[in-house]
């Protein structure tokens, strides 16, 4: 019982210690991170362009194709010129 109590106390010390250690290190790391990646001044320069626009993955690809095929059937000769 007393033994269990000691174990719990030790767990508390270790626990709060690790929690603070972890989150303090994280605090420092985030400070560093936000310093290294400042918010771009005005116009949010699209270093990461529109999501999935160029995403080449199976799913979005086929969806795109589907649409493309349908468009084509209605307006041949004006096929989409946008590509990589």
């Amino acid at each position, binding site marked *: 019982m007393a033994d269990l109590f000691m174990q719990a106390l030790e*767990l508390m010390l270790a626990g709060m210690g690790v929690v603070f250690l*972890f*989150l303090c290190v994280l605090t420092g790391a985030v400070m560093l991170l936000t310093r290294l990646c400042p918010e771009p001044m005005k116009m949010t320069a699209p270093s990461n362009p529109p999501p999935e626009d160029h995403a080449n993955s199976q799913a979005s690809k086929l969806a795109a194709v589907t649409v493309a095929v349908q468009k084509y059937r209605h307006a041949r000769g004006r096929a989409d010129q946008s590509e990589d």
Partner: protein
Amino acid sequence: METWLTLWQSTGLSAMSLGALLMIVVGLVLVYLAIVHKFEPLLLLPIGFGAVLTNIPLAGMNEAGGVLYAFYEVGIATGIFPLLIFLGVGAMTDFSALLANPRMLLLGAAAQFGIFATLIGAIALNWVPGVEFTIQQAAAIAIIGGADGPTAIYLSSQLAPELLGAIAVAAYSYMALVPVLQPPIMRLLTSKKERAIKMEQLKPVSKRAKILFPLLVLLLTVLLLPTAAPLVGMLCLGNLMRESGVVERLSKSAQNELINLVTIFLGLAVGAQLTASSFLTIETLGILVLGAMAFVFGTAAGILMAKLLNVFSKQPINPLIGAAGVSAVPMAARVVNKEGLRADQHNFLLMHAMGPNVAGVLGSAVAAGILLALAG
């Protein structure tokens, strides 16, 4: 003749036990709280309904071959359901408020004191005759102080599945009660002047920092506390899917279909653990007392840490926001905002409180990792 006897023996009227009846009432009370008082309805409605279903005599829904049993074995015993919820939570969470003011992480750390104080409390309760918590059970109970449902369910499924039902009910109930539990403590520990402190506007955060943040958290977990990796990892994956912007459809699915469907199954499976033999015990009473204690201590520790920070900080920190460190997202942050407005009707703290609020989610996942490592 035999048919009629079989028929009578297969009615609930003949087969009902007092314990099952009481547990059905408990389940209905949870459903009532969910619907009428809006106590965490997304979880407590399925949990309460699951408690009713599991206690229907002869139906065997929680025995081998039953549907609730299957949900439990597949999703809770394995930890998969809470981890998937964490994936969805990650995809829903915006860490901007935290990135704009990283010191908020310390408030999220301090509020975890509620967990560890409760751990001591649970062991101390062993002095009461009839209560005998092991260190694993004490740890599982203590995590109620993390004020985070999936973390609590995950940890107790790993450390003390026999207490899972009571722990989950306590955790969600106290989360719903945050607007009642926290304000007295907040007023006790702060002066009106402190509560009226206005905080500076948060800086905007770059997209790149938001993308790198989940990876940073994951790497720290890898280095310092791998046992927290399942929880933290899924949270970070969800958040990375959200912030990266390249897998929009996966992120949307994790925030909607995935989390909704898993919530239904998780709730039913947790509710199915609420049987008379496991819930109508002196231990459950202990868990309810300890759970309340966990929230109180966590709130107090968060507030005191905010006061301490305020001493050293150049920018003013309203100590109220420390109370949001217990998680209970976003309830605790709203309570902070409300108390701030009571002190000064132009003092909007909601966004400032979101920082410690989401920090508390990380904090309790870390605490869960330590408890798994040392008591698991």
